[in-house]
């Protein structure tokens, strides 16, 4: 069966510090990968998605970047965190070409607090 691992679960970082959140998927190959941010009252905001190694698309301009160095690994980074980067970050994957629809499978999330 497929599993998605996301870490750390919580993170407290000072303003201006770097960030690296990692996500890995097991039990599938060539998945679509996503980073979402969840803020109260704003639902789930798609930040980045990737359809293959090295292929990253950004949905919104921001202080963050993403990379996909391996097929089942997705990394969210920042060189200098801002207060506004605080939030609940979710990694997700989907099976490419699923004819039944875009079923997203989410990780357990990282609660990031920038102080």
């Amino acid at each position, binding site marked *: 069966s497929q599993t998605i691992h*996301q870490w750390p679960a919580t993170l407290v970082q000072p303003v201006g510090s770097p960030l690296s959140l990692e996500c890995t998927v097991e039990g599938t190959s060539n998945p679509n990968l996503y980073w979402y941010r969840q803020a109260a009252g704003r*639902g789930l905001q798609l930040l980045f998605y990737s359809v293959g190694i090295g292929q990253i698309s950004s949905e919104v301009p921001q202080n963050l970047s993403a990379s996909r160095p391996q097929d089942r690994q997705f990394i969210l980074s920042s060189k200098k965190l801002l207060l506004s980067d605080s939030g609940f970050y979710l990694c997700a994957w989907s099976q490419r070409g699923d004819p039944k*629809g875009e079923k997203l499978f989410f990780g357990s*999330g990282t609660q990031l607090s920038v102080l």
Partner: protein
Amino acid sequence: QQQVKQSPQSLIVQKGGISIINCAYENTAFDYFPWYQQFPGKGPALLIAIRPDVSEKKEGRFTISFNKSAKQFSLHIMDSQPGDSATYFCAASSDFNSGGYQKVTFGIGTKLQVIP
């Protein structure tokens, strides 16, 4: 611009009652409408989904009602239980493009509390 409008943002229902969450969409190209359930501190999980070729889909106590002409769909939770207390997101997406990617647009979420 919010393409999927969800209401209410919060809902309190007594145990055994019916919980109803409504969503409306604008993009007529949407053809897949899932609902996700999220417990505190966890990621959302797919609960139930529907395509517009049917007007209703039922799985246990959970039912999606779909009105294509009104561009609205709703989630009904029958015999609501305290264990159903969670945040529910409606969503919509359209056919895959040539890149194999299908963008999912989420509603703002509804925090449901079922009280004993």
